[in-house]
């Protein structure tokens, strides 16, 4: 399956991005003047302690949060200047998330979770059964999220992201709720799929070992990028 229609130097980017929550004395800046670019097919780890701004940056890249200042770009266009509906369309067209808690739709089966994402991505040719088979869940097509283990749920979330024909996969602590063995298996799966499908991967984690799996490591501290380079 070829999910990458174009290859550009810059798939997604943020420029002088500041995201703040709260007002006046309760105002907290989660990101401060952050600038970075993600190239197609790139594998990037956002690493930092809890509260460093990793999740906010992931959410900003997918248009889930609006910047207080600065700009978010997607495929060369400004994502942050779009309205809610247009940002949604942009996500449907190539930005996928794997959340820490999987965030599967609770009233849909594994199959339907994948089918729902495929339908809204306009990926009619995508077969949920094949994607679920790809993540090793062919036997659990009709299971509800409440009937799946944490690792299985994360694998459904990954299949769902694939169904979106993602050019950019944003993973937020994908192993945060999993035991180490399961976490490793999930990371292996993501890595394998990244290589197979060539989507850009941005993985937020506080775990240095996980971060070391990526080709590029961006360290965040108090909402600022303190380093950006290859992992040591």
């Amino acid at each position, binding site marked *: 399956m070829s999910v990458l229609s174009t290859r550009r130097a810059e798939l997604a980017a943020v420029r002088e991005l500041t995201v703040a*929550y709260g007002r006046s004395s309760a105002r907290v800046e989660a990101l401060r003047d952050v600038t970075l670019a993600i190239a197609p097919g790139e594998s990037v780890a956002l690493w930092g302690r809890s509260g460093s701004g990793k999740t906010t940056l992931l959410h900003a890249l997918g248009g889930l*949060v609006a910047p207080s200042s600065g700009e978010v770009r997607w495929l060369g266009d400004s994502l942050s200047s779009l309205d809610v509906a247009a940002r*949604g369309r942009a996500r449907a067209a190539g930005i996928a998330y794997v959340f820490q808690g999987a965030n599967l739709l609770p009233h849909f089966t594994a199959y339907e979770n994948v089918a729902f994402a495929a339908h809204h991505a306009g990926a009619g040719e995508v077969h949920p059964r094949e994607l679920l088979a790809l993540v090793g869940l062919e036997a659990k097509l009709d299971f509800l999220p409440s009937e799946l283990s944490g690792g299985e749920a994360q694998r459904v979330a990954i299949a769902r992201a694939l169904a*979106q024909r993602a050019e950019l996969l944003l993973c937020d602590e994908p192993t945060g709720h999993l035991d180490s063995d399961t976490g490793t298996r999930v990371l292996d799966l993501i890595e394998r799929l990244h290589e197979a499908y060539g989507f850009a991967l941005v993985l937020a984690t506080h775990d240095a070992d996980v971060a070391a799996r990526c080709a590029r490591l961006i360290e965040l501290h108090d909402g600022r990028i303190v380093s950006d380079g290859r992992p040591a």
Partner: protein
Amino acid sequence: MSATARLGVAGLLRTPGRTLLRVAVLAVATALLGSMLLFVGHSLRTMSAGAVRAVPLDWQGPVGSAASARRVAAGAARQPGVAQASATATAPFAGATSQGANGATSSSSGAVLAVSPGYLSGIKTFRILHGALRPGSVLLDQQMAATLQARVGGIVRLKPSPHASALPYRVGGVVLVSAPDVIFQPLNPLLGPAPAQPPANVAVMGFETFARSYAPHLRAITGGTLGASAQPGAQDAVQWQVQAQLDPRPLTGGSPASALTRATQTRNRVERSLPGQVQFVDNLGDQLTTAAGDALYAQTLYIMLAVPGALIALGLAYLAALGTVERDRRDLALLRARGASRRDLLTLAGAESVALGTLAGLVGAALAFGAVAALVSGGVGLTVGRALATVAACVVLASVGAAIARIAASADVLRAAVSEGRRERKPLWQRLYLDWLALATSGLIYWLTARTGFSAVVNPDSNPTLSLSVYMFFAPTLLWIGATLLLVRLRGRGLAWLARRLAGERASTPRGFLAASAARRGAAINRGLVLVGLLLAFGVNLGLFAATYDQQANVDAQLTLGADVVTSAPPGVAARAHLAQRIGRVPGVQATSAVDHAYAYIGPDLQDTYGIDTATFTRATTLRDSYFLGEGAASAIARLHATPDGILVGRETITDYALRPGDLLKLRVLDRRDGRFRVARFHVAGVVQEFPSAPKDSFMVANLHYLEQVTHGQGPNTIFARASGDPAGVARRVAAATRADGTQVKDIGQQTAQTVSAITTVDLSGISRIEEAFAIVLAAGAMALFVTLALAERRRELATMAALGAPLRSVGAFVWSEAAIVLGAGLALAAGLGFLLAEMLVAMLQHVFDPPPDALAVPWGFLAALAGAALAGALLATALAARGLRRLPLGRILREQ
């Protein structure tokens, strides 16, 4: 305030939107209950006041002599609570004569009432039309004065007994005796009140005049002869008595039952203060006993109509509380982690409930005051004390409601907190199948009562009082309970099954996703369906019942009064002044018909006899086929029209005298020329069992022209008119146009109020308006609440859909589709359950109405408003939800764990 309680209140302040929603829902529920309290309290007071007012003479104590009467009256008058006690007497007279300008005229037998000075200041058994009561004089009843052609200052002679000589009295004036059946009833305290056929002629004289000049010619009724005089109309001796009237004020502030208790206590005290001297026939107690029974019935009816609404409103409060259950879960988890005990958790719920309840109770009380002021004509007699009591009741109710809703909504959380690991079991009522049991019992009771023709309504003698077996209300009560429990048990499985069929095996289309989601949210949808469906069923039941009740009250009123507007005129005036034609020209009058109300003896029975103009009668009023036996109204009237000396006779008379249509019937009719009854020949033209303005059964209907001919009457004395507009307005115009002719005009509106209060003592219009208004508001609120709650509950799920790139319209469809399911299923449930409930209630009231309703009346306007309100609530909430979805803070929601 403890730290836990402070935490509870702080939690409310932290989420002001949700807190306001909970307060608003609780306030509306409380307002419904508050307005019910105000209305029912007012109704009970009105019943007491009506019952007290309806008794012209509270007590009559038979005594043996004039001296006893004076002594007992003086003793009774000194007792607190007694407004007046008067020495009085009654006695018969065998005949009366008067010498006028045209010679001597005489009247038949009658009765004398002797009263002490000042009698009329507190006792209103008669009214002096003109003249005054002076020593040695008599006042004549209007009819007797007319028969004797007596004038003030003239002399009448009364014969105390057939063999006694006539005693002369100067005529002091003319009176209108308003309660002759009570005044002249046989007095036996052991038997109680027994209103008797009133005497044809009545003369009133002073007590001392009576004692000195009249009583010596008759023997006196004493204790030993009480039984002999206890036959109505059999009085042949002097009945010395003490008549007393109670101070009505202490009796009218509460329910009829409390008024009865107070009145009985007063009577016992008076009798104890005069040991062995008097025992009263307690007319007031009798009336209050009936009123207390009616009040019980009314209260039951109010409860049947109001309580389901209030409980459902409380259910909405539960739904509103569910909106905060996630926050509660987090708070409780935090508290548990810090070692909070079960008591602390309950304190938290209690503090929240009291805070919410106080606020909601105050708002609810204000809403209740506003509702009754706006919707109950004439208000509910609100005093400062009653207002404060209502506010207190509202605050308590709201606090209890808030606590129940809070605990029910957080039950899982609390249960988990206090008894983790307990195995989930079905509730006891489900294991005992109480839902099915309730439904089966409801059906059984309904079947049993229907089988016996609803004869639990005790009304054997057509007396306009009602006694209804309260157990019959179990049928609708159990239907409510059973239906609610069954809906809870089903947990929307039926809807879920339908949705699964629609979704197919694995959903992959927009419709499939919606159906799959709905299929797996059966319990949540069912929660909305239970509340919205039951609320709408409450509205449908209420609307159908109230409309049928109103319709029957109207039919009943028309049957009792005769027509939309009825004008009574003194003898001869209607014909002389061409009243029918003049009234026919009054704006708003569609048609008129003249009627003569006379009397005739059939054998020993005196029956009301109506002379009607068959050509115009059915234009001026409505005749129903059910009024006649063996044929319809048109056929019966046509037959009467075709038989000049024809007469329609009651079924009872037909049976008693073995009559058949066409038989010759000789009646003794009152000859108006000399006041004597003479034989007239009629032929039976048909059987009638009801007729406008006629009493039930004992009456006859003849052609006006023939009746006038045989009675030598001066023409009709009543004009029936059909109004094309508001009957009250038409009646006012008719009264204005005919006032100079001495007419009395009544309209169907007044009669409806009177009939309803006389038959059932329940004025449903006020309570119906209040409940209908609340039903409409609650229907809109329930749908809005369901949508709001669905949005709150599915926030994270909907945010995930948006994060996956689903268009907001598609995301919103998951909200409105469920609202549509709840509304559609709710309307279907309401139509079925509401109809069944109304059918049950109306069927039970078959004997309240005369004639009984043939079918339920359907208030389409109200039902449309109810459904429209629910739809509007859903649309508004869905529109707001769509707006909310656009503003959903996706990032923040998706970070929440």
